[in-house]
């Protein structure tokens, strides 16, 4: 009986994953199609490649050689054919395969995300738990009003204020860039700022401003989850058993708070990723968001399309994994879409 049930779940899972992959491919198709449809509107990459003196005739010839004048469908089919082999085209701006450019810019963004995630975890856990345990204390009230203020601050404004305060006026922290980085694997793909003092200093302001948008949300979430758990029979029973407050709060209550928090954390990191665009712009942080804006500005259309496809696939992938994990952790949740 148990075995057959397990098998059923497995079948289910398999069908689910297949459906998700098909869905992901569909999304990729749509994204790349849209990307392709607008790419001619964003600007002429040839203009950025040549000097201003080059005549229109010669420019047309270059565009011809690059295949930019081919009919839309031919270009698109060519793109898809190459994409299947993992070739997402060549960035005009960096003059390298677009995928390589994106992969090389990813670590900067990932480190920014890791840094802010650390800040979020380190600050929101103690503050959230504390304000759940002592909701009427001064610190809790202060935390709560401060967190509403935090949600209301646009990321870029926070960033500018931080720069104004710490870099311009106090001159204690650097205002832009990643500082000194170390080539982690020696192949030029992952330059990390975590291993030098200078690199860490450069991380501080961008990470704070990026985390500022999510931090309040998590403090509130942890607080409300914790408060809810404290009301449950389970905790009342623990009290009745005569366990020490520390044990009840930290081991029993806190453990149960964590699951929903982790789920939301996964989802919110996606949104945080979007906000890196703003943070990276203000701090001139050479990550994917910065690269994206640069590609829009410089009409690097092939990099733009590649970026959309990569970001799209990462999101579909992450969402699928989250759904699967969620299905495992919480078997009462039916896997999305099945009846």
């Amino acid at each position, binding site marked *: 009986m148990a075995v057959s049930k397990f098998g059923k779940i497995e079948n289910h899972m398999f069908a689910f994953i297949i459906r998700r992959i098909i869905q992901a491919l569909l999304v990729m198709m749509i994204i790349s199609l849209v990307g392709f449809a607008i790419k001619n509107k964003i600007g002429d990459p040839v203009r950025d490649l040549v*000097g201003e*003196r080059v005549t229109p005739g010669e420019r047309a010839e270059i565009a011809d050689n690059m295949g930019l004048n081919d009919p839309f469908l031919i270009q698109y089919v060519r793109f898809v054919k190459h994409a299947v082999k993992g070739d997402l085209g060549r960035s005009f701006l960096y003059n390298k395969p677009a995928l390589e450019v994106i992969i090389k810019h990813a670590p900067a963004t990932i480190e920014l995300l890791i840094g802010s995630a650390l800040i979020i975890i380190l600050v929101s856990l103690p503050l959230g738990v504390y304000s759940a345990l002592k909701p009427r204390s001064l610190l809790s009230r202060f935390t709560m009003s401060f967190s509403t203020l935090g949600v209301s601050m646009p990321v870029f404004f926070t960033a500018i204020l931080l720069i104004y305060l710490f870099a311009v006026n106090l*001159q204690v922290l650097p205002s832009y860039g990643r500082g000194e980085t170390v080539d982690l694997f020696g192949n*030029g793909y992952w330059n990390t700022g975590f*291993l030098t003092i200078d690199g860490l200093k450069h991380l501080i302001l961008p990470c704070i401003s990026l985390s500022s948008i999510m931090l309040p949300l998590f403090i509130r979430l942890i607080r409300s989850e914790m408060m809810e758990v404290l009301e449950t029979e389970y905790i009342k029973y623990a009290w009745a058993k005569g366990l020490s407050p520390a044990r009840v709060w930290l081991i029993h209550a806190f453990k149960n708070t964590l699951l929903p928090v982790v789920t939301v954390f996964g989802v919110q990191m996606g949104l945080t990723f979007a906000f890196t665009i703003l943070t990276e712009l203000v701090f001139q942080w*050479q990550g994917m968001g910065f690269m994206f804006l640069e590609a*829009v500005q410089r009409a690097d259309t092939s990099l733009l399309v590649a970026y959309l496809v990569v970001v799209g696939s990462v999101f579909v992938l992450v969402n699928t994994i989250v759904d699967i994990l969620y299905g495992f952790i919480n078997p009462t949740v039916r896997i999305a879409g099945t009846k």
Partner: protein
Amino acid sequence: MKKLVLLALSLFLVLSFTVSAGAKTLKVGLDADPVSLDPQVQLSGGMLQLSHWVFDPLVRWTQELTFEPRLATKWERKDELTMRFYLRKGVKFHSGNTFSAKDVKWSFDRMRTSVDFKGLLEPFDGCYIIDDYTVDIKTKKPYALLLNMSTYFFAMDSEFYTGTDANGQPKDAIVKIGESFALNNESGTGPFVVTKREQGLVIEMERFKDYWDKNCPGNVTKFTLVPIKENATRVAALLSGDVDFISPVPPQDFRRVNSDDKVKLVTISGGRIITFQMNQNRVEALKDVRVRQAIVHAVNNAGIVQKIMKGTATVAAQQGPRGYAGYKETLKPRYDLKKAKALMREAGYANGFEITMMAPNNRYVNDAKIAEATAQMLGKIGIKVNLKTMPKAQYWNEFDARAADMMMIGWHSDTEDSGNFSEFLMMCENKETGYGQYNSGYCNPKVDELTIAAQSETDLDKRTAMLQEIEQILYDDAAFIPFHWQNHSYGAKKNLKVKEIINAMNFPYFGDLVVE
């Protein structure tokens, strides 16, 4: 875990000691980095700057706009069409090869195949080797600007760039998009050797040990270039000491850079004129010279220079700046709002009209702000302006399509001569000859005639008179709205002797830079 901490610590120590003392290092922050190591792949300011660091031209401009011998030690005119160049002996390329006449010819011929330089080389017939250290450069017609053009002739190492590379592609291929040998490898004769290049991130260079110019005062041994696009960030990097030199310095930060006790601001007037063109083919009203005069009179370009450019630009009323052959002293800026309104009334447009305007937002210093201010100034004489600003990658497309009634264009003469402005900006647009490539909607046959005649006029007085007449006609016609000539601006640490190495072309000669 302990091991990891130890490892990290020792990594730290190693890293912090690698910066050795004694060597003069220079870190430069520019708004963009050169797109390639191939000096002939793109004709742009950034590429020419790099060429002056890694390669050497036959002759180069000095601060006083005279010619300074580089790879050519002297030159003489053989006849109306020919200039003979005597080349320097004992010059080594970075590869170790010895420089000679064949490299000059090879580079010249390769340049003619580059789409970017083709147009500039149009007047030339060819380069002829006389002996190992003598070449003749010939033009098709008598050409007054042959020496000016020789500042573009950088010598590449013909041996180094011959053969096929690892991908089976000829090493001399000029490739705009995609891999090429010259994209990532260089062998020039210049003061710096490129040691590392990461597009969009950094170029690292070291001083060339066998550099031919033993009299060169420069003492920079390690030279790093990083692109910092955002204006405010670039200034912050200089002020915090992250970089030693930046350019350009945004006008709004001049005061701050100047008042800092560790850094200084150096500016030099440049020859780039900023203008708006008025398209007569798109708007009927603009055909009326009174309306165009009204517009020019409504624009307070002195105010723009004072407020937006913070005084570091020269207010203009004509195309070429002082020092150029066509410069006419009597042409003065015309801001006069009362007169502008009167002219509008006179032309029958007392109630004004509506027009569209486009400008780039990352091409010229404060371009979008100038456009915005102009739009507001025109509002005062009843012309409602719909303004759109955009990155240059989109802007040039729109310019090609002449998509708006007024379009911004800035121009720096390739030859440091007045004629070049009219050829590109003011001659009637002609797709065949390429004249008027950046002219949106002004056409006066008289201007065409004079510009063409001036090209092959070798009597300098006559030529000056012609070029000045052109400026007068354009002024009377109100052919365009003149704003100003941009200054080049540099911010640097106080111990850098910057004044000595800059020039109107914006080619800072870092090879000659002295760091105290």
